[in-house]
């Protein structure tokens, strides 16, 4: 990991106009990202996913993004035209979504989808693209790449689908990967296997990773640094190895309310939320 900064986000705000009035999903989030693995953790509605989506310009049409600064290397993400976005998305910043069932095209073979992702950003002929796609399927540890290449998403299991998605997102060789709950829908052992694949690829290719999850334990065992979000604010930022020294009562509460395998059946400590946490 070097100290070079890839992405700077300053005072990011995301608001949505809904029939019930304005919803302030992200309230003044700031962070710097180097070539490292950054975890963003929070419960539902904390704004963790919206933070990730805003970086890629994927905020829904009824949402508005404002930021003092959103700089990715030489690109100012705050002022991009749709055409300029297409040069960034996929090619330089890519996103792995939670559920491969809904994120892969159901009527296109897996091979064709990976090839499409590759040829969108690389001028190569069909034969070369096919070769690269098969290589990529092998890289995500799919045992029979030829078979998977020719199959449709519904013919694969959840873990396999998520490997396919990783293959597809990594094949254009982006500099930054945003993974939004990439393994939450998977069984726990499969989840760890998929994370190991992501881990190896990101390390080998020197990519930066933003890993968004609700699972504080998992994220801290995987990432270098963790941002803890609550109601749109980052309430605490800490090194993953320092998790046990967390200071903010919300972080501590999240850790304490997890059931443990210690044979103790007494009540779990519950989280007493304080209004002041939501004020940043």
């Amino acid at each position: 990991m070097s100290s070079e900064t890839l992405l700077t986000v300053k005072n990011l705000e995301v608001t949505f106009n809904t029939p019930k009035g304005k919803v302030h999903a992200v309230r003044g989030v700031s962070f710097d990202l180097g070539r490292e693995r950054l975890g963003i953790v929070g419960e539902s509605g904390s704004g963790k996913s919206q933070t990730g989506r805003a970086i890629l310009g994927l905020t829904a049409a009824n949402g508005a993004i404002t930021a003092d600064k959103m700089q990715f290397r030489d690109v100012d993400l705050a002022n991009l035209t749709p055409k300029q976005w297409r040069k960034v998305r996929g090619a330089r910043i890519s996103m792995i979504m939670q559920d491969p069932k809904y994120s892969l095209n159901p009527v296109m073979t897996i091979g064709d989808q990976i090839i499409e992702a590759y040829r969108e950003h690389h001028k190569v002929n069909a034969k070369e693209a096919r070769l690269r796609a098969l290589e990529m399927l092998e890289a995500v540890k799919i045992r029979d790449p030829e078979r998977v290449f020719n199959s449709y998403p519904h013919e694969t299991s959840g873990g396999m689908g998520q490997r396919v998605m990783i293959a597809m997102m990594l094949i254009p060789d982006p500099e930054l990967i945003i993974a939004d709950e990439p393994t939450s829908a998977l069984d726990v052992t499969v989840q760890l296997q998929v994370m190991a694949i992501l881990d190896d690829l990101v390390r080998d290719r020197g990519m930066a990773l933003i890993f968004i999850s609700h699972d504080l334990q998992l994220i801290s065992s995987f990432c270098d640094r963790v941002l803890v979000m609550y109601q749109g604010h980052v309430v605490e930022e800490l090194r993953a190895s320092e998790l046990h020294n967390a200071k903010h009562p919300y972080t501590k509460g999240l850790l304490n309310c997890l059931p443990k395998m210690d044979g103790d059946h007494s009540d779990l400590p519950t989280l007493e939320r304080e209004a002041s946490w939501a004020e940043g």
Partner: protein
Amino acid sequence: MIEISKLNAWFDDNHVLKDVDISVPANGSFGLVGESGSGKSTVLRTVTGLVDDWEGTITVKGKKLGPKRDKDFYRLAQMVFQDPFGSLHPRHTIDRILTEPVNIHGLGNSDARVVEALTQVGLDNAFRFRYPHQLSGGQRQRVAIARALILEPKILLLDEPTSALDVSIQAEVLNLLGRLRRDLGLTYIMVSHDLAVVAHMCDDIAIMNHGRIVERATAEQLAEGTLEHPYSQQLYKAAGGYDRAVVDTFVDWD
């Protein structure tokens, strides 16, 4: 309270439960852990009468179950499902959702019963005339538990009751379930993919894989980590978080 022996079940040609034996004493809490497709939910669904093709014996409170469940069975045993978004009728108020089982069983006095059931799960009366979409996930799961409790059952069959919830809400619902078991003398069978949840809630635990129980353990054994079957050891390690070296030791069990 519940004795299951040599339980086998099929979905068409698919043999999904293989010789499952479970015994739960009154006021006991039994946990079934496994990954998707292990058959853990199918055990509960068979007991509650949602699976047609099964063999073996299921005895609940001394009574052997036949192919059909009668009303008495459902007064004795109720099920709580995983997804609080899918298991409540979206166009019925909470009041109607809770009153329906009371009427079906002809218990009468539904007004007082609804108020009591809501109190038991820690929801105040203001929720009574709301619709499910006006409630959070945790509140909905409380309603689902209230609907099960309103018939004053002795047994709750819990199918991943907290896996759709945030961890802070999970803690509240698990505490609620623990308190209800103590106060009302309930018997639980709880299914979960999360070893820690089951270890926290249950005295006896069975680990399932491909329709079979591969290992049984007590909460104490889990606390000490003394599991013998390689599959259970792998699950146990996986519950400890991400460790690159540990992942390399995993084998596929399919």
